[in-house]
């Protein structure tokens, strides 16, 4: 029995847009803690791939538009944990990018209870039509070509999922930097239960 924690991580863009995974994240992601990794692509180099492999040998990966060296990666995949089908895709093929209706269509096509996507470099988690949608954001805080408000920058983040039966507990890790430049990791928890009347949409975006 391996660890039951599933890590969702993506949009690292090393070395083109970021130097490395933040040290505080690397420290948390020690080998032996994670059972499976769902990697949403745009790694984009071999060292990062090897690092993720060392975190958990069960590395499931899909292709981002910048993963040019790994041409054979699929665009989406589905894994099953407990009674939940979890689909994941980088999201650059979903148009308009990050649009909730388009994501819902994709989730229905993949027949999944949970859809994990990336590409926007912005953490999001919400329920729609009884399905959970999760975007773990960018693990490195790499800049994105999308629209950003004045002075706003991507916050490094990743997600952990713990599935027991039909319940998924999502842990959201974000690297905060205060005015003095000191970094700290915040952890938030979101619980998703399959086949219960959907509560009002909770947009956890910051």
């Amino acid at each position, binding site marked *: *029995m391996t*660890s039951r924690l599933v890590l969702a991580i993506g949009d690292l863009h090393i070395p083109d847009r970021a130097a490395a995974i933040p040290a505080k994240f690397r420290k*948390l992601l*020690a080998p032996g*803690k994670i059972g499976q990794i769902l990697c949403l692509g745009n790694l984009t180099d071999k060292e990062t791939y090897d690092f993720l492999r060392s975190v958990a040998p069960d590395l499931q990966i899909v292709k981002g538009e910048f993963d040019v060296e790994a041409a054979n990666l699929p665009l989406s995949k589905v894994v099953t944990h407990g009674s939940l089908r979890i689909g994941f895709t980088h999201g650059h093929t979903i148009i308009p990018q990050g649009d909730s209706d388009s994501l819902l269509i994709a989730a229905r096509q993949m027949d999944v209870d949970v859809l994990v996507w990336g590409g926007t470099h912005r953490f999001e988690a919400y329920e729609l039509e009884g399905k959970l949608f999760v975007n773990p954001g960018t693990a490195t805080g790499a800049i994105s070509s999308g629209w950003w408000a004045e002075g706003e920058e991507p916050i490094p983040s990743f997600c*952990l999922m*713990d599935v027991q039966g039909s319940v998924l507990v999502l842990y959201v*890790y974000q690297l905060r930097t205060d005015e003095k430049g000191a970094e700290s990791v915040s*952890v938030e928890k979101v619980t998703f239960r399959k086949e219960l009347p959907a509560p009002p949409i909770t947009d956890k975006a910051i």
Partner: protein
Amino acid sequence: MRSLQESRQRWKEFNAYNSKDSLKDDILRKQLTSSPCDGIRSLCWKLFLYLPDFAPPTWSPVLSSSRDVFTTLRAKLLGPLETGNIGIYDGDPDHPIDPLAEGPSNPWSKLRKDEELRREIIQDLERCMPDHDYFRSEKVQKQMLDVLFVYCKLNADMGYRQGMHEIVAPILWVVDNDAVQADFEEILENEKYMLEALDPAYVEHDTFSLFQAVMHSARPWYELGEDSDDIGEKGNSPIVEKSRMIHEDLLMAVDPQLARHLKELEVLPQVFLIRWIRLLFGREFPFDQLLVLWDSLFAEDPDFTLVDYICVAMLLRIRWELLEFDYSMTLTLLLRYPQPKHPNLPATFVSDAIYLRNHLDLSGGAYIISKYSNRTPAPVPMLSPAQSPPTSPSRRGIRSSDSPVRRTMSPIAGQTARTIPSSSGLDRLVNDLAKGVVGRSKGWGLGKPIERLMEELQWNKPFENEK
């Protein structure tokens, strides 16, 4: 799982005994043919290892309390892993427990430790008894895993040690195999005792109770010494100390010639004794013969002090080969113990051991040696001080390792040669010739290949002294 019809007959035979001692006597007496435990072994082991009284009406409370204990322990130690409720969702929802945080108080790191322990055990279970299809089943491996896991959590100071799984395996097989499925309408009055003791619903529970009872005595063999690390058997770990005692005290008392010979060869007793003892001889004998050996052992001595003497008895039975072999052949023989042949099945080691326990001296050793080989060891007084002064071990050591040919001319070997019955004389001659060839070929630079060839020849030679 057995049918009621099958076990009914066994139970009838079982009822002919009126005490643990009468059953024990019969086991020790009948060990050459069949064990009275066959078919009802699970009950017999329980009787010897943890049921305090022979009378069937007294079993029920002990059985049910031991089963309750396991049910409770299992729910407490394993339940959280199975249900996922390990307290990780408790606490302040605004400040969730971070699954990745380190620290002993974090329920997630406790969970990780438990998962790690289970992984470690599974790794061994996957390779456990590879020839036995029964142990390949997922259900069986899960049962062994849960029993071992609960035991290791209870004995957290020691944790899991390789070898424990090979103690659990035969126990589970016996308990599972002897369980009786019966309809309660067709049973006779006193059969309810048997059916309760062999209830298939409690296979895992009873396996745990038996394993715990065995480990009660076997636990020290798995402990590491105080100043040793986790990597090797260093320092004064109890098992190394025990091996030394078996070699230098027990074997020395009954067969000093063999004890000194092993010492000269520098064969460390723990090299083979750790495996013999920790697995209760599980790797040395075929599975069905092992069970009969355990019958006798559990019946005679549930504290397992007899195990030391069994080791000595096993050494004595191959002592003639051991005396002739060099270091590598000796190790091969000890780690691949010759399969005992009928009627000298492994269970006879227990009666030998009982005899040795009562006669721990030269004549006791000589009796056991001659019993299986019709050869008596050279009487020790023949090693008169003039021929063999107290300092001689080192001198003889140099000689025998230097040149095996010359060893046949040494007073001891000469003495032995004279006592050899004619039947094995030829074989002995071949042996000596072989050694002569090896000795000479070393001079020709052909030592290695010829040595290997000779080793093979001798390895293939049947152990005729066993017959």
